[in-house]
């Protein structure tokens, strides 16, 4: 998957996880929702790791090169080329 598609995947997983998160806030013992949360967290993590290892950091501490703090690099999220 290229960077844009990986980012789309992360955004989709995050969207689903956030809805599950809100549901679980008020239904913290719902077995089915807990299983879904775990399953999609794992899928999200895989997409997230694939993205950040190749296309740049999503959080500042992932700026891992010695030469350059690439956290600060363009594009930033509101720019068309980031989407």
């Amino acid at each position: 998957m290229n960077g844009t598609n990986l980012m789309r995947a992360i955004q989709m997983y995050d969207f689903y996880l956030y809805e599950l998160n809100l549901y679980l806030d008020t239904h913290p013992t719902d077995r089915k929702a807990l299983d879904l949360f775990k399953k999609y967290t794992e899928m999200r993590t895989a997409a997230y790791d694939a993205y950040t290892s190749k296309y740049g950091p999503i959080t500042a501490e992932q700026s891992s090169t010695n030469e350059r703090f690439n956290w600060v690099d363009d594009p930033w999220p509101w720019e068309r080329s980031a989407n």
Partner: protein
Amino acid sequence: MWAYEKKLQYPVNIKNNNPKLAQAIIDQLGGPDGELAASMRYLNQRYAAPYAQVKGVLTDIGTEELAHLEIVSAILYQLTRNLTIEQIKASGFDTYFVDHTAGIYPAGASGMPFTAAYFQSKGDPVTDLVEDLAADGAARLGRPLKNYRNSYPYYMK
């Protein structure tokens, strides 16, 4: 505390600028029922929450509204790139432009700057909840410009 992730919650990639549309959509940034009011409402009200589940919900939805705020700002930013003077005058965007040029400023569609007077925090969870319901109802009603409906999806509320 909060942590920033360098991504939008939902992608924004707008090919053609449109200052008139921006002038309507800005209501979702700094208007009376916009994302900033929603976020500040929940994040301030949470301290009066009596139960863990309510604290959790208010924290999480108050945080998500900030992600929505960033989506709205990205829409406004992209809609107001590379404007010509003619476009600015003809669209009616000139009134905003005099005050802010194309800077993103939290105001409503009428130009009224954002104010904390848009929301309440009364220290009483039932009173706050009723206020939240009224605000959410107002946010869902806030679509008077039907032509813009497609650019104004329900999940931004």
